[in-house]
């Protein structure tokens, strides 16, 4: 970090603070339009069934009901979604909760009443709740309309594989090989507090959607092809999203196109908001339903020589994250060893739909891998810190033409270890006694990714204030604040002089979604480029204004200050920024970031646990993160985001997990009482204040995105800490008390 920064690296309050704190921020479902109707879905009670008849006449006759849609009404709308496996409504239910009809009525109560009046006749089919049974010979195709899946229900028709180097050679160089036969990740859910919601208004002016999404721009493309209207005729307004973590970020969901069709059918605005049960079950969310076998070879000095692993994944009834999610298990890139073979077999089942959750699948590989690192370190007599440090690329290393700019694993490992007191606390499990045992563990999580196409416009007004026009919505990640800080830094402006326009596709250029840790890396950079463009225009226009007949100054000799342009060598020779812009004019700058680049985010977690060997309960008592995401733009927001991902990691490791009734396929815990996300009392102390200051020149002021990494490490760190406490390797998450008790069974 060479350049001295004025704003970057400080922690001003979020720009939307008071809007949110005062209750004024409008989330999708907060919008009330005149004459608005309320819509409700009817869900299938069967896991796999064909609808043989559906009678909506009684529902339509109920006073207040304005429209009922079934597959018959939308049959002309084809398959969509990231995997093209979803119809708007369906004549074939593929999981308990599949959406088979939708009602619009003058009140939510009446819409619910009308659902009971729809008569549906189902012909049940055999159903499959796990990949093994769905792949079995003679299994009925879940998606017969997708020919490639017709045998064995494998999503891509056949397993996918990835190879690098030569694993045969690699394993021949190994002196020791460690493996995990079957690492099981039971499905968890993003569980954002805001459920999916859409308010649709389809008028002669086009389709307007108030939508909870972190992908408003790309979403229009899917809606356009579904609904047969030009993209430019679809306006998505999505300033605030009540968090997503992936489940509102892709080509997913039926709520918005269906709300749009209901609005078209009735000529009135329509609101469709998922209930909590619908969010937990029907909103895409299932992820990490996988079983993985992994084998890693090590030379006697701890150098990794080869890695082979095979993933069997459950796509659910619809795989809305796309098949790429399991390919993303190629998490091995940051490791120096390049002898890798992995395969992924992703299978449709009659369980709730799947989509990516904060990590895009890379954790599927990282979880067992980081446990194997812990196993190897113990057996080889090494400290696992050294084993990790030894095997990672680090800052300055090259991968092809790409450079690892932000992979400060050694720094993160040593700083985190010092903070938690690793050396003194890392006592081997053989020395632990008593009913309550403590343990300490760690894990590295490195995410590789890229930037993705994004535009931004910066508008300098005639009073010197600055507007940032960038379509990246605010979902809690702090993007409005971060891009405002970038603009203030780039234009040497007061932070308070910058205003960020709320997300609205009608007035903003394309911005990439939140996902793949691309958001700030792409949008922040686009804003920086737009500011540089504006600044060049401002200085060029100011130069003649600051020149005299005897002293000509050029743009290169000028600088900007708060609402000011001045001669760098003679700061008193200045002119008001507003004067340069000119009354009732503005100066705009445009920035575009192309797709590409090489993004590395590194988060290293250290965890202390307490295991009650009598009850099997595991408590995380202390958590330390040491992280490298390049230049920390706003350390306070980064700390909050890392805390949040780590707390989700504690929940998804210990208390969460879907419960599916094996006799019906119904999910039993579509609620917060029984799907237990962490409360404020469910963990101990936490420290995410350690940030290295690597610098990625591709990112805005050297920063990279990467908060997905905050969910890559907590799980293996906790599992390694549990091993350190009780001497048992746990290879299944979530780790319910019964798993601990079973592991302790023999001892």
């Amino acid at each position, binding site marked *: 970090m060479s350049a001295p920064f004025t704003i970057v690296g400080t922690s001003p309050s979020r720009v939307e*603070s008071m809007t*949110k*704190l*005062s*209750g*004024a921020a*409008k*989330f999708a479902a907060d919008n*009330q339009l005149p004459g608005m109707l309320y819509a409700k879905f009817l*869900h299938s*009670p*069967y*896991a796999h069934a064909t609808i043989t008849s559906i009678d909506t006449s009684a529902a339509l006759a*109920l006073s207040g009901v304005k429209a009922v849609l079934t597959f018959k009404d939308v049959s002309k709308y084809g398959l969509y979604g990231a995997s093209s496996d979803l119809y708007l409504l369906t004549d074939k239910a593929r999981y308990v*909760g599949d959406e088979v009809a939708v009602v619009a009525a003058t009140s939510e*109560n009446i819409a619910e009443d009308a659902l*009971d*009046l729809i*008569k549906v006749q*189902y012909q*049940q*089919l055999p*159903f499959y709740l796990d990949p093994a049974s769905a792949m079995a010979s003679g*299994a*009925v195709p879940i998606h017969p309309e997708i020919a490639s899946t017709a045998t064995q229900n494998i999503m891509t028709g056949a397993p996918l594989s990835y190879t690098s180097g030569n694993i045969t050679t690699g394993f021949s160089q190994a002196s020791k090989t460690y493996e995990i036969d079957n690492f099981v990740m039971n499905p968890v859910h993003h569980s*954002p*507090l*805001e*459920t999916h919601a859409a308010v649709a208004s389809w008028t002669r002016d086009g389709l307007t959607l108030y939508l909870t999404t972190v992908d408003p721009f790309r979403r229009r493309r899917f809606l356009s092809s579904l609904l047969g209207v030009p993209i430019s005729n679809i306006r998505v307004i999505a300033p605030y*999203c*009540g*968090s997503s*973590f992936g489940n509102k970020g892709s080509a997913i969901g039926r709520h918005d196109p269906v709300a749009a069709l209901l609005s078209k059918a009735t000529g009135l605005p329509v609101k469709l*908001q998922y*209930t*909590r*049960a619908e969010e937990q*079950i*029907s909103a895409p969310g299932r992820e990490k339903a996988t079983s993985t076998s992994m084998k890693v070879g090590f030379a006697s000095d701890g150098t990794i020589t080869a890695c082979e692993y095979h993933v069997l994944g459950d796509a659910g009834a619809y795989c809305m994250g796309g098949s790429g999610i399991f390919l993303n298990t190629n998490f091995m890139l940051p490791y120096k060893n390049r002898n890798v073979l992995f395969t992924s077999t992703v299978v449709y089942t009659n369980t709730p739909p799947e989509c990516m959750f904060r990590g895009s699948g890379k954790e599927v590989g990282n979880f067992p891998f980081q446990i194997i690192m812990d196993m190897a370190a113990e057996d080889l007599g090494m400290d696992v810190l050294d084993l990790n440090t030894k095997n990672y690329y680090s800052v300055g290393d090259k991968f092809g033409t790409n450079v690892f700019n932000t992979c400060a694993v050694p720094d993160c490992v040593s700083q985190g270890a010092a903070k938690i007191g690793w050396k003194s606390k890392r006592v081997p499990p053989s020395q632990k006694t008593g009913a309550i045992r403590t343990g300490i563990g760690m894990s590295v999580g490195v995410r590789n990714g890229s930037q993705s196409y994004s535009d931004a416009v910066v508008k300098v007004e005639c009073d010197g204030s600055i507007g940032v026009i960038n379509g990246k919505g*605010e979902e*809690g990640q*702090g993007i409005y604040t971060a891009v405002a800080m970038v603009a203030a830094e780039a234009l040497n402006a007061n932070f308070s002089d910058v205003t960020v326009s709320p997300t609205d596709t009608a007035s903003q250029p394309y911005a990439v979604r939140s996902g793949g840790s691309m958001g700030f890396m792409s949008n922040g950079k686009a804003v920086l480029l737009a500011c540089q463009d504006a600044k060049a225009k401002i200085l060029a226009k100011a130069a003649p204004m600051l020149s005299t007949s005897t002293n000509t100054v050029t743009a290169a000799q000028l600088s900007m200050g708060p609402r000011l342009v001045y001669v760098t060598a003679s700061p008193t020779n200045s002119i008001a920024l507003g004067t340069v812009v000119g009354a009732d004019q503005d100066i705009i700058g445009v920035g575009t970031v192309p797709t590409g680049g090489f993004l590395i985010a590194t988060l290293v977690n250290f965890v202390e646990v307490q295991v009650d060997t009598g009850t099997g309960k595991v408590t995380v008592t202390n958590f330390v993160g040491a992280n490298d995401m390049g230049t920390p733009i706003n350390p306070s927001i980064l700390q*909050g985001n890392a*805390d949040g991902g*780590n*707390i989700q990691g504690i929940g998804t490791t210990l208390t969460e997990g879907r419960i599916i009734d094996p*006799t*019906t*396929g*119904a*999910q*039993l815990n579509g*609620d*917060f*009482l029984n799907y*237990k*996300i*962490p*409360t*404020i009392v469910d963990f101990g102390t936490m420290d995410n204040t350690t940030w290295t200051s690597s610098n990625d020149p591709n990112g805005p002021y050297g920063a990279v995105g990467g908060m997905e990494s905050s969910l890559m490490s907590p799980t293996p760190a906790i599992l390694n800490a549990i091993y350190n406490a009780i001497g048992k390797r746990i290879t299944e998450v979530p780790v319910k008390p019964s798993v601990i008790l079973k592991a302790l069974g023999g001892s």
Partner: protein
Amino acid sequence: MKAGKISRRKFVIGVGAGVVVGAAAVAGAESYVLIKPSTSTNTSTVTSTVTGPTTTVTGPTTTKTSTATVTGPGSTSTVTSTVTGPTTTVTTTAAPPAPQPVSGSDVTMTVNGQSQTLYVESRDTLLDTLRDKLGLTGAKKACDRGECGACTVSIDGKPYLSCTTLAIDCDGRDVETIESFANNPNTVNILNAFVKNDAFQCGFCTAGMVVATKLLLDANPHPTTSQTKQWLSGNLCRCGTYNNTVKTALALGGGS
């Protein structure tokens, strides 16, 4: 999903009784029975018994200790498929009798200092009434069954989950929502402390957190870390902003 969803109509006729019991426990401030479970399908039969406030305020207790029954989707399904071969079972989900008319009544309550008289159906929750009839959308509908705290409002100075409080039970009562906080010198400092400590991310749980924190400080002006956590344990935040929320409450209480 049908069986998993507690519709307002079923909620009122007693199917949701388990949830209501849980909610009463969560609200904590009063011992009362909102709904008397009834075997009647006549939705106009609503029995609300409010036994009055107790003197002990324990704050919003964690929902994790409640014992509501699991009501998963399809749990009423009576036909089990088999994976061993094709079935030819044809099942009809029969439509129940048509919904009956729903009763309602005028209620008068004070909302953010202003008296409001409005007609509510007996099945309308306070949350829906605030949001849909009064345009006060600060309180959020995140679970709609008393499990998350995002809809927390103050009623007569005590924390209530407005999603499991019927509007018809609020006649004569004093309701305060987040919308009153910004313009009130007694509460704006709470908002400022949340801002200063970055104690929110997406903002969806925030109204509930702020209202609950305000009522914590009313009941206990100098809370400890553990008292703060206990009080806020019924307010879920999926963004995981908990550490900064505790910092905020401690700062407001003069602690560190």
